[in-house]
Each structure stands twice: as C-alpha cells, then as structure tokens.
C-alpha cells in the first residue's frame, strides 16, 4: 500500500455489520476498512462471504434498496453513507454489476450511455460531448447507433462502464464484472479498469477471477463468513503456495501456473458423430460443414468466441433445434432431431429456467415419479444437497443450483451431457465440486461436452478441446500438454 498512506480516505468502515431483512445472521460482521483515494482494492472470497454486500453498502443500495440493517460507522467522502439518498451516492460512486444482460435500460448505445447524465440533469449542450467521450474511453465507436439487446456480454459490459463513466464519479465499484465474460472481453475490461486507475479514480472490485487483476490491484482483501480475514499485495498473492490457496478456496491468480492432471484416455466406444453439420439463422450461416466425433468418457471443452454457434450446436445435438443439413449419429445410428433428447441432455446457462419443483427432492421426483426416498437421499448426498432436500430450489445459491441441475441430468441419464458455462460466477470450491462431479460422470461412461470460457476449470476437468475458430473450422486437440494452446484459443477474439 506504499504511497497511499498519505492520501485522503474516501471510504471508511468502523465495526460495520449488515443484515438483510429476513436473514438469520449478518452478511458482514465487524468490518474495519479504510480505502484511500486512487486505490485499487479487490475483495475476494467464497460464495456468500460478504463481498457483494460490501459493494452494496458503499453504493448505498444495501440499506435503501435491499432494506437491510446497517450498524457501525461508515463514511463516504467525509459523510456517513446512511445520510446520502441513493441518487446522491450515484454521483460519487459508480456501480457496474455482474450480469450485463440486466443492467442496461435503453435500447440503443447512446441512450444508455447518456442515461445517468440525463437523470442528473446534465444540460443538453453537454450531453453529446459526455457521451462521445465515454464511448471513446471504452473503444466503443463501432457500437454507436446499434441496439444493445443483441450485443455480446462483453460489449454490454463495456457500455455499462461507459454509462457510469459519463457521470464521472470519483469511485467505481464492480461486482463480479467478469462472471459472464469470455477471456478476450476480460482483457478489454482489464484495459478499462487500468484506464480508470490511471485517471486517479478509486476502484473496488468484488471478484472470484483474480488473474486479470494482479497487475492492477494495490491490495487483495480476503473475506470469509462475513469477516475480513486476510490481506495480500499482488506479489504476496502470486507467491501464495498452491496448497494454501486451495485450502482457502480462491481461484488461481496466475493462469500460467496451472498444471493439468487429466490422464490420456484410451479410445473408447464412439458415442456421438457429427457429419457435415450446417446451420443458418435467417439465411446467415452460423456454421458450415462441421464434423467431429466423441467417445464415452470424454470431457470435451467446447470453446470459441461468442456468436460462433456453440450454443446452437448444443441445441441441435439435443433436439431443440433442427439443422439445415448434415447428420448426427448416436452410437453409430442416425437420429432424427425429434428423438435426440433421448440421447443428449443440455444443461443451459440459465439455471432458473430449468428448475420447476417446490423442493429439491420434488425436483428430482418430477422425472421419476416412483422414486423411493432412499434413492433420492443417495443422489442428494452424492451432490452435497441432502441438507437442502426440503428447500425451494430458488433459495439455493448459484453453486447449489448448478449441482441440482447436474443431479437431475444424472438421473435422466442420457449417454451425452452438454453444459453451457456451468462455472460462470462460481467460486473455487464450487467450481472444483462441479469438476469432480463431471469427472465421476465421465468415469461412468458418459460423454460430456462443456461450453466454457473458464480456463482454470477446463484445464482441471477436460481431456479434449473443440475450438470453433470460425464458421467452417473446428480444431480438435487433446489438452494433455497443450494448455498453452487452450489459453491462446480462449484469448482469441
């Protein structure tokens, strides 16, 4: 923290605790924090550790929007946070949230970037300049005039940053901004954050993925169970022994240190064969002439930039969409699209749209009405969900919901399982549990395709990668000894 001691304090917490309405305990307890002007601070820790709550306290949403109870002394630029109405804080603290899809308000770029300024009554003459500057700052000139809804997550996130920077607050607060982004977009985000730091803004980031912040952060604060437990500088974090890092449960800070432990698989029976598959959307080709094979026990990372057709491929393989031409063979036999759901099950990115029961146990019973309690208990214990068997699925955390959808797919038991970004927004422990579950499913003989941007996860889970470099090219390579190639594929636009 060299050089910051003499600077002005912009945010301070003294024995601060916070409880959400209806919650059993406090989300954060006895927090003492002192952030100086121009500092770049990263908050990290497992799911539920309280880092998001801290960001919400600072931007005023915790008390006034989530209606929780705050105790202790807080100070934002000299005044207690509780004294400010939320709209006043918005001029001083800019917030960028986790999900780019539910952050934007307007339908086109300029309207969105101007949104905050309009709310604060920036005069008409100044608006255009502010919008233009903010868009320049994010290198977003090609997004001008375009509709936001069809954009990629990375582009949406950039616009979110531009919208905040047009208001020009002193402090920026990011809540897991990289959760839904591919690695290329994370690099772009890193660039934007670097600019903010250069301009002298104070930045606070709550994050799981730490690798892109080691060049920027002045300090890393680790939280557990609502308390601030440890503090590291970038060097200290990078030098943290692997064993200690895994015990604490945080994601790796240096991606180049990852070692793969996946043994080379002996050729097993061919389960899936895709021949010359093509798909077009409204006469625009999405992919053409795609061919590959998959074997039982395979764990394949499906990678490629957004829009290249990975999700579409998954939809075709499980029978939700019909291909334009080509064949899909399961166990050597061609299967029409209507019958493919008997062979492949697709766990989509949006877990909320896949859970229908009113309890975890009920969720499983939906697909097996005559299941015995003993069978349900066994499956739930396997996925670490038995204690929650009577809870409503909507009350589960992100990691628990993901494990529940895996438990459902385990029970549905198709030979092929496809997952779309199963680890986005998940902390290290949850990511590792998902990885372990998938590996054990593969040992049982399932063929698993995982659409992912998560390098750490792919490296510890998969044995193969299918890289969609463009419409008609797919590269198939083994991950053994090939992590550098995986890394560069993930970083390509």
């Amino acid at each position, binding site marked *: 923290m060299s050089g910051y001691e003499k600077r002005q304090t912009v945010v301070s917490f003294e024995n601060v605790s916070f409880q959400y309405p209806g919650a059993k305990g406090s989300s954060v307890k006895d927090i003492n924090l002192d952030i100086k002007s121009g500092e770049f601070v990263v908050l990290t820790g497992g799911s539920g550790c309280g880092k998001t709550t801290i960001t919400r306290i600072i*931007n*005023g*949403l915790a008390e*006034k*929007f989530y209606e929780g109870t705050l105790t202790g002394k807080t100070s934002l630029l000299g005044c207690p946070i509780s004294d400010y*109405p*939320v*709209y006043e*804080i*918005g*001029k001083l*603290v*800019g*917030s960028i*949230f986790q*999900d780019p*899809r*539910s*952050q934007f*308000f*307007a*339908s*086109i770029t300029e*309207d969105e970037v*101007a*949104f*905050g*300024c*309009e*709310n*604060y*009554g*920036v*005069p*008409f003459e100044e*608006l*255009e300049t502010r*919008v233009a500057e903010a868009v320049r700052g994010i290198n977003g000139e090609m997004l001008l005039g375009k509709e936001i809804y069809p954009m990629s997550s990375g582009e949406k996130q950039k616009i*979110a940053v531009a*919208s*905040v920077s047009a*208001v020009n607050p002193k402090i920026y607060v990011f809540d897991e901004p990289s959760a839904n982004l591919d690695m290329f977009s994370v690099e772009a985000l890193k660039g934007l954050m670097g600019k903010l730091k250069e301009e002298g803004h104070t930045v606070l980031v709550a994050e799981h993925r730490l690798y892109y912040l080691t060049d920027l952060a002045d300090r890393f604060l680790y939280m557990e169970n609502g308390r601030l437990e440890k503090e590291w500088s970038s060097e200290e974090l990078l030098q943290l022994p692997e064993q200690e890092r895994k015990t604490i449960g945080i994601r790796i800070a240096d991606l180049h240190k990852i070692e793969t432990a996946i043994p080379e698989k002996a050729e097993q029976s061919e389960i899936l064969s895709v021949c010359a598959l093509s798909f077009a959307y409204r006469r625009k080709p999405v992919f053409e002439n795609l061919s590959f094979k998959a074997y039982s026990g395979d764990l394949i990372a499906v990678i490629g930039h957004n829009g290249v057709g990975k999700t579409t491929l998954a*939809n075709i393989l*499980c*029978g*939700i969409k019909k291909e334009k031409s080509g064949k899909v063979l399961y166990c050597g036999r061609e299967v029409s699209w209507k019958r493919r*759901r008997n062979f492949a*099950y*697709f766990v*989509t990115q*949006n877990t*909320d*749209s*896949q*859970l*229908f029961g009113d309890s975890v146990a009920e969720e499983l019973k*939906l*697909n097996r009405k005559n299941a015995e309690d003993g069978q349900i208990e066994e499956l739930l214990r396997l996925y670490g969900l038995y204690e929650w068997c009577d809870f409503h699925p909507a009350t589960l955390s992100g990691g628990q919901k993901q494990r529940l959808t895996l438990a*459902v797919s385990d029970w*549905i038991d198709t030979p092929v399982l496809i997952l779309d970004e199963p680890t986005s927004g998940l902390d290290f422990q949850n990511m590792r549990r998902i990885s372990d579950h998938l590996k054990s499913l593969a040992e049982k003989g399932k063929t698993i395709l995982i659409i992912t941007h998560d390098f750490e996860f792919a490296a510890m889970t998969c044995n193969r990668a299918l890289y969609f470099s463009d419409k008609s090219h797919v590269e198939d390579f083994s991950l053994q000894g090939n992590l550098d190639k995986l890394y560069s594929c993930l970083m390509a636009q």
Partner: protein
Amino acid sequence: MGIKFDFRTKLLVIVLMMSLVAVLTSDILIYTLLGLLCIYLLIQGFYRQTVKYFVVCCVFIVLRLYSDGNGVTFLMPEMFLFMILRILMMVMAAQPVLGMPPGEVVAVFKKIHAPNGIALPVTFTLRFFPTIRSEFSDVFASLRLRKLLSWRHPLDAMEYIVTPVIFRSSRIAEELAASAESRGISNPGVHSCRRKLLFRKRDWIMCVAAIAVTVMYFVLERTVAV
C-alpha cells in the same frame, strides 16, 4: 431509413384517421384512404409492416366483396367485416407511435412531464419486451428436454411454464431497478434528455396535408353519400 416525424404530428394523424373511419361509408373512399396510409407508413421507413398490413387488409376487402352484404357464416357478420378494415386502418395510423424507439418514448414522457408513477413502469415495459420471447423459449426448451410438457395435465404445464418465468422476471426487475437507482433515476431534480423533440418544417407540411386530406374526404363522403 425514412422521414422522422415529431410525436405530435403522429398523434394528429391518428386522431384524424379515427374521425375519418368512423364516418366514411363509401368503399372507394376507404380503399383510397388505405392507399394514402400505406404511403404515410412507407415514407417513414416501415416497409415490412406496410406490406403485412396491406396484405391483411386485402384479405378482408376480398372477404367483404365475396360476402356481398351477407357476412361470411355466422362467425363473421357483415358488420364485423365493415369494422375490421377500419380498425386495421386505425392500427396502421398508430404504427408510427407504437413503433417508436423506447428512447423517444421516454423523451416524450419527459417533455409532457408525465407522472413518474406511469412513466417509470412504461419505461421498464418497453425495455423488457424484446427479452420476453427468449425467457419463455428457454423454459419451453427445458421442459421439452425433461419431457415435462404434457397437454394431458394442463394445470401442471401451466405451473411449470409460469413459475420459472416469474422467478426470472422478478429477479431481472430487481437488478434493473438497482442499476437504474445507482445511476440516479430517483433524482428529484430536472432530468434532461439527449433527444430533442422538435416540430420541424416537415411536421408542419405533414399536419397541413393530413388536415387537408381529412377535410377533402369529409366533403367527398358528403357528395358521394348524397
């Protein structure tokens, strides 16, 4: 991409159109008015919509000619055929307002100082329209994969479709509201607008033309009817 008219011009056209369709009885007049409406939409850039409206109108015109005053079975009495064409024309006149980009709608609200209690929900409504289809299709896709959609158990199907959509939408509402609050939507002061709503020369021309056409049709209706 078409001429852009001010919202006041578009509203005037709607009001004039409503008064015309309530009064016109001559078929020729209605058909020619339909033609003028198509031009009105085309010059604003609504190419695809104009074609669709035109085709549907033609279908009803043909039905009316075929029915020869007796309606088409009891399902479509003559009066309904009479009304449908006119209602379609009112919808066509309203298309430029219905198809306003959300940013412009918000600008209109600010200009007319619409109360927050209605302006805010409408802004969120417009914002959410494009995403609804994918929310439902995600749920339908999951239900098909899990083979839970059975028309033999319609109430169960309703529960399975409606529940996840409500959970998701409620969560999105909260996140959107948080995002808006953190950027000052509740600021009690004056809110500015980057879109300037100007009544320009083209608006004057359009309004005068619309009024002239309306008067002319009223007069023609009188003479034809007599």
